[in-house]
């Protein structure tokens, strides 16, 4: 039997009186892509912020199991947690400006992730950064340019490179194509899709765009008012939804 890479049990987080997310349980297996959908305010971002260590949940359990090593995410020391986040997790923000240093060159941005896990050889950092710039379809002549000279789509691809360069075990993406023009979205989605396939990434992706989920996710959960109201294989949830809300969500969206 395979052990889930991530197992979440009864996770809850509220902000004062407002429910962020409530009693969330789920598991994620290596190489799976999990989509989280739901209307705005349904708790998607709260949930992935809890899972990625950006937020401290009120209750519940988050267990990562990476290379047969179990990490009780909510019960380890701050330093162990930050180290774990640094080496095993990655977070792609909706706004690439939140995940990049705008006053540091493209290469420096990508390289920082390597340096943060201990790389101290300039030549190696440089060549890995070059390789990844290429991989995300940015011309390698742009490696020393500042991100402010990049388009929105390029910035997002740069952020993706920065996050993937250290081969993290779980990648969180919060609306990775949300802030982009429709024409640019498709290209970024393509890139994510091909990287997911090529590198067999394990991903949790938040999107309110069902087309994104259909394209990328193996499994999905539907959130409403902070709780998971439906979950399963993404084709099953999209094609044979069992909940009234999900049916509404699916039918109100133009099909791809």
């Amino acid at each position, binding site marked *: 039997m395979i052990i889930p890479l991530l197992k979440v049990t009864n996770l809850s987080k509220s902000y004062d009186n407002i429910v962020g997310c409530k009693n969330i349980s789920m598991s994620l297996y290596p190489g799976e892509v999990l989509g989280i959908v739901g209307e705005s305010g349904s708790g998607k971002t709260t949930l992935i912020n809890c899972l990625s260590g950006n937020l401290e949940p009120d209750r519940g359990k988050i267990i990562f199991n990476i290379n047969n090593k179990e990490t009780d995410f909510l019960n380890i020391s*701050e*330093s162990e947690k*930050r*180290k774990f986040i*640094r080496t095993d997790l990655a977070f792609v923000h909706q706004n690439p400006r939140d995940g990049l*240093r705008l006053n*540091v*060159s493209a*290469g*420096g941005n990508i*390289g*920082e992730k*390597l*340096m*943060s*896990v*201990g790389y*101290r*050889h*300039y*030549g190696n*950092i*440089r060549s890995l950064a070059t390789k990844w710039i290429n991989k995300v379809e940015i011309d390698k002549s742009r*490696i*020393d340019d500042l991100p402010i000279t990049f388009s929105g789509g390029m910035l997002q691809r740069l952020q993706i490179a920065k996050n993937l360069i250290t081969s993290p075990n779980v990648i969180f993406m919060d609306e990775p194509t949300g802030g982009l023009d429709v024409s640019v979205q498709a290209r970024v989605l393509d890139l994510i899709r091909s990287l997911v396939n090529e590198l067999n990434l394990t991903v949790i992706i938040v999107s309110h765009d069902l087309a994104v989920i259909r394209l990328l996710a193996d499994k999905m959960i539907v959130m409403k008012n902070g709780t998971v109201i439906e979950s399963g294989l993404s084709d099953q949830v999209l094609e044979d939804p069992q909940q009234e809300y999900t049916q509404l969500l699916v039918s109100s969206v133009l099909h791809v």
Partner: protein
Amino acid sequence: MRKTNNVIKIKDFKVDKGLPFDQEYNFAYLDENTKKMIRRAIIKALCIPGYQVPFASREMPMPYGWGTGGVQVTASCLTKRDTLKIIDQGADDTTNAVSIRNFFKKTSNIKTTEITEKATLIQTRHRIPETPLKKKQIFVYQVPIPEPLAFLEPKVSETIKMHSLSEYGAMHVKLYEDISKNGHIETAYAYPVKTNDRYIMDPSPIPKFDNPKMNNSPAIQLFGAGREQRIYAIPPYTKVKSLDFEDYPFDPFKAEHACDICGSKNTYLDEIIVDDAGNKSFICSDTDFCNKRKNK
């Protein structure tokens, strides 16, 4: 960044005698309780090399930026038997150095000197003397920005966390940027170091040429930042390593010149424009060292 306004009046080497001792002040200006508090911070700083200890910085009768942090540390370490030397960018006779020296003469009546070997306590801005520091000397740096991570992370709560968890990877980003832009590490001043294999520390804006002098020094090195209210320290014989890359090792660069006054080839030089035609001259920034060499 090289300062050329620092034209040193070499002929006029004698400094003025300063104001007479004023009995109205407590010894070295600060009251004994304040000194005790600062000493406690200093002792803590010595116990955790490179770690920035917060302290309650006092108003001093000089503006911030004039070394109020260094002055408070000096005041707290000073005893009646001390011989004090004050330098500013290597020189004993610039306004800043003179006024701080006068301040201590007026408030403590201690001996002062310009000769590095004779001093028991040296306060400095932007330089470490060429004459090696010795056992039992205390060397006090004036520090404007104590936090080496500040340029990366504006939130103090976050930099504190980064230090406590040794999350220093991002420090190399600046060096990376230097190399990718210039082919070498351009940072010439305030070049960050790792102290005792643990804390990353800002050595204050000394030239990187001086960085190796901090390593394994027999003297006690204390750093005071008045406005930022931080004290940190390097105890004697402590490893101080300048950050670098394996393939771009640290290089304490200096200009390819000899001193035009004393002929020294291995001292840090100031570049001075000597006439209206823009002709340049290179002379030791450490005036005491240069004079001794010249007079030999």
